């Protein structure tokens, strides 16, 4: 159903032979889906992020993203860095890193924020595009299938929040709101899907959500943990 043309960690080819696959694709009339991981560095003509070499010259992520993005049938930004800059764009952002949409302002970029993105979120999006040719998105181009509810909405510890029963330190089995849980501002299906082969997730391990799948992560989601916190209600 799919042919994986280029993936730097999964493909057999290396060096210019690997880049050759990308160049062949761009110069052909083949339809393809572009999925990008990582931010695009913009300072010094993008030289902070080189994905390979082509004809002896470094090929920057900036150049490759523009070249492939212009021709791709669908574009998916996978992970926090590709969607909005993520850690790469955290202050003081010396490389001038940005998300893929900034480089391709006129293109529809499907965004799968998350650090990391859940494998289901990516494969589910890809499968939907292959089967239906589209996937329903929210205002910020996230698939509603995975990003429609906040973590707070589905949190198994929601009753503790409603009752005002809050954990004072990590490891307590109540609501982690006072420690700085970002579940109320983060939209994912983590509470029901869970991670590591559907085994557990941060709240289940008694540690607050750090909002890794919210735009602005990590700067806007910090501090990840606070102990000197608000009054008891």
């Amino acid at each position, binding site marked *: 159903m799919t042919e994986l043309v280029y993936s730097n960690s999964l493909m057999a080819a290396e060096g210019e032979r690997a880049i050759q696959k990308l160049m062949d694709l761009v110069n052909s009339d083949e339809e393809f889906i572009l999925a990008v991981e990582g931010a695009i560095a913009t300072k010094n003509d993008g030289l902070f992020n080189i994905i390979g070499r082509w004809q002896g010259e470094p090929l920057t992520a900036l150049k490759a993203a523009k070249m492939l993005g212009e021709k791709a049938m669908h574009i998916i930004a996978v992970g926090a860095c590709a969607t909005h800059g993520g850690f790469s764009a955290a202050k003081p952002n010396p490389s001038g890193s940005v998300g893929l949409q900034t480089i391709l302002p006129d293109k529809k970029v499907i965004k799968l924020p998350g650090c990391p993105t859940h494998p289901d979120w990516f494969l589910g999006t890809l499968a939907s595009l292959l089967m239906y040719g589209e996937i329903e998105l929210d205002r910020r181009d996230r698939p509603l299938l995975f990003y429609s509810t906040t973590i707070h909405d589905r949190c198994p510890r929601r009753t503790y929040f409603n009752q*005002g029963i809050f954990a004072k330190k990590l490891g307590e089995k109540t609501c982690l*709101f006072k420690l700085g849980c970002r579940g109320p501002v983060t939209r994912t299906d983590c509470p029901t899907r869970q991670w590591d082969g559907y085994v557990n997730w941060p709240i289940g391990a008694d540690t607050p959500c750090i909002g890794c799948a919210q735009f602005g992560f990590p*700067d806007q*989601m910090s501090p990840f943990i606070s102990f*000197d*916190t*608000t*009054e008891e*209600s």
Partner: protein
Amino acid sequence: MQNNRIQMIQFEINYTTNEVNNYMRMLYQVGDIYNKNILLNHLWEKVNYLGYLNQLMTTYIPQSQLPQKPSPTVPNITVPNKTFTKEELAKVTGKNGNPAYIAVNGVVYDVTNNAAWAAATHFGLSAGNDLTQEFKSCHPSGQRILDQLSVVGRLVL
């Protein structure tokens, strides 16, 4: 069909407005009372015609497309008499057992137990500050959000 009618009416309105302007200029020029009265009569007619055109226009344009006067929303909040200076506000940061207060548009709100303000921080912003500008830039029509917060007092400068 309907657009054609509306265009025709608009044309008539423009044409009639020009005529009215012309009659008014003529009124300044003529000296005798007889001619003045004739021009005034013409003006009455033309103004009536404009009124008629206006009415015709509203029957052809659906109600939904007419410009609506925005109904003024009066925030129905009672603000307690308590006042805060900037220095006093800066102390209620939600740290070390203090409550977490923020100010927006001169009103001080309690966000201590607001879900979006975990550990008294919200998207890189901290409690204890006047966040009017920040609120405006992220929630431009956000009175609904403010209505859900409990009001503590007023910020005095």
